């Protein structure tokens, strides 16, 4: 048997695109980057302002000085002396974490039942979820407040956390849309292999839907972390239950306004959100793109 001679590979000479094409590509790149730089400056400017002011002395803050001189790192220590930031942070974490856990735990089974189990009235139930999604939250505030007041829970974190354990329309919708994209064959295979519906949910669906669940958890965490209205409504009268957002607002109005300390506190409050977003950016973006839902 004869073997065909193998051609010796030669170094690839890359073809240079014509000058007109190169020029067009260069101009496009310049245009794109200019746009991005302008957008970045617009978004970063307030952040930069906060960060710089947080490092100024009280005299420099909101003056004509843009650059702190000297850098006063002590501001971050003083904030803790002037306000119970740890207490507020703890309340915020209790609220954000328990509410997020509640949203995830309660929304997943509902979304599964609305997407992957056939039952009479399923579409009607999904319609109700959509209606709940479209209902402005303000509409239900007064009756809910009356209810919590009658239960004697106003003033604590209960009214903030408990409703999240009964499902959240947006999360149910987002998860349902994602569950619909999971090929039915995965679930059928699990059924034939001996799984019941709960087992399928726990061993198959949760694993396949990780990006969507992460997105739901992130949305919920960020929403509750930044929430101002509900904590104000339910805990305004009880400073020991204030969350960071309320504390920050009160910090400004209670004391004589010290802008450098206010900005230092603001920076501390913003930090967790920014850190969470950076760490979970991938899951966040994946979850949103996979479900085709905008947050």
């Amino acid at each position, binding site marked *: 048997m004869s073997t065909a001679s193998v051609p010796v590979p030669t170094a690839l000479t890359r073809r240079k695109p014509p000058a007109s094409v190169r020029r067009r590509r260069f101009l496009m790149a310049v245009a794109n980057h200019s746009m991005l730089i302008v957008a970045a400056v617009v978004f970063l400017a307030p952040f930069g302002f906060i960060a710089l002011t947080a490092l100024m002395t009280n005299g420099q803050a909101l003056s004509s000085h843009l650059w702190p001189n000297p850098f006063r790192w002590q501001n971050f220590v003083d904030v803790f002396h002037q306000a119970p930031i740890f207490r507020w942070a703890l309340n915020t974490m209790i609220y954000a974490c328990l509410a997020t856990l509640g949203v995830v735990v309660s929304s997943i089974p509902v979304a599964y039942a609305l997407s992957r189990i056939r039952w009479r009235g399923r579409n009607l139930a999904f319609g109700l979820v959509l209606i709940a999604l479209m209902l402005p939250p303000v509409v239900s505030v007064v009756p809910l407040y009356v209810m919590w007041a009658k239960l004697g829970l106003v003033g604590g974190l209960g009214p903030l956390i408990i409703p999240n354990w009964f499902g959240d329309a947006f999360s149910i919708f987002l998860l349902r849309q994602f569950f619909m994209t999971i*090929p039915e*064959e*995965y679930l*059928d*295979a*699990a059924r034939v*292999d001996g799984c019941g519906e709960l087992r399928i949910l726990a061993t198959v669906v949760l694993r*396949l839907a990780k990006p969507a669940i992460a997105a739901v958890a992130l949305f919920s965490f960020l929403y509750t972390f930044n929430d101002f209205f509900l904590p104000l409504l339910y805990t305004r009268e009880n400073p020991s239950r204030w969350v960071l957002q309320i504390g920050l607002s009160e910090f400004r109005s209670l004391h004589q306004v010290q802008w450098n300390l206010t900005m230092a506190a603001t920076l501390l409050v913003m930090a967790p959100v920014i850190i969470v977003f950076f760490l979970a950016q991938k899951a966040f973006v994946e979850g949103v793109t996979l479900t085709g839902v905008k947050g």
Partner: protein
Amino acid sequence: MAEVRYVQATRLYPGTDAPAVDALDLDVHDGEFMVLVGPSGSGKTTALRMLAGLEEVDSGAVYIGDRDVSDAPPKERDVSMVFQNYALYPYLTVAANIGFPLRIAKVKKAERDKRVKEVATLLGLSEYLERKPGQLSGGQRQRVAMGRAIVRVPSVFLMDEPLSNLDAKLRVQMRADIAALQADFGITTVYVTHDQAEAMTLGHRVAVLHEGHLQQCGPPRELYERPANVFVAGFIGSPAMNLCTVPVSNGAASFGGVDMPLPQSVVANGRTSLVIGVRPESLEVAEEGIPAKVDVVEDVGADAFVFCSTELGGETTKLVARSEARKAPRQGDRVTLRPRADEALLFDPASGERLEL
């Protein structure tokens, strides 16, 4: 190991008028390899899913062994299934995928590992056990899916077009592997395909379905040589059988001017026309016969299929003949085709049923 029986089993999807599977009566013997075949929408996959417990049985019953499983959930039926897209969990390794049914059945880890290894060795997957399905080729994924199905040694083995995503060469190889595996284990197997080559080569018996009705069930050779009706005759065989409605006079059928004598039993009830079925290999290019014009010649190696047009009873009719590749006519040639009268099949034009000669 168990036999499977469909007794008047019917599935009517909500919101539709026509049942997807209509009063299916079918027995699959213990250890038999039964192939369900039919065109898209024939109800073959629905029938399989009814057996798996993934579709409801709206009327009638499905038995596995002596047990009526019509209302039993899938996990209580002791069946395993290979899906068209394999349905391997992307987040589990090959070993975990194969061992999944055992994990669900709470088999101890040591025993589970042992069985997974045995199956992997059998299927030539030993070196891939720690990989994820995404890192495997189509053929390997297919074998993992097979492994997951056999690791539990079920009573009945179900396969839903398991080879349709593979390339032609791999498909032929896997076909042989599946046949060998089934023969080794002797597990009753129900296999769904739309590919009649798979049906004919794999099945001990083949059941042909059309629009939810069972048309015929029998060994592949019987289906080919003695199709029950016009549908089966046209569906089994490639290229399809030539089926033409021809007039009957003086005890003979006139097929494009060629008189084919008919037996007394066929002529007796005064029929004036018949459907005549001639396989391409029973229609030869000859000196005399039905005049036709060659449209296309398909050279398939040793043989060539000659696709022709002819005038029968005032209508243009397409006919296919088989010829030796070297002697095949060319496109545009005028030829004459002669049917072998003794190999022709006759069908009743009204009911489509084959007439016994």
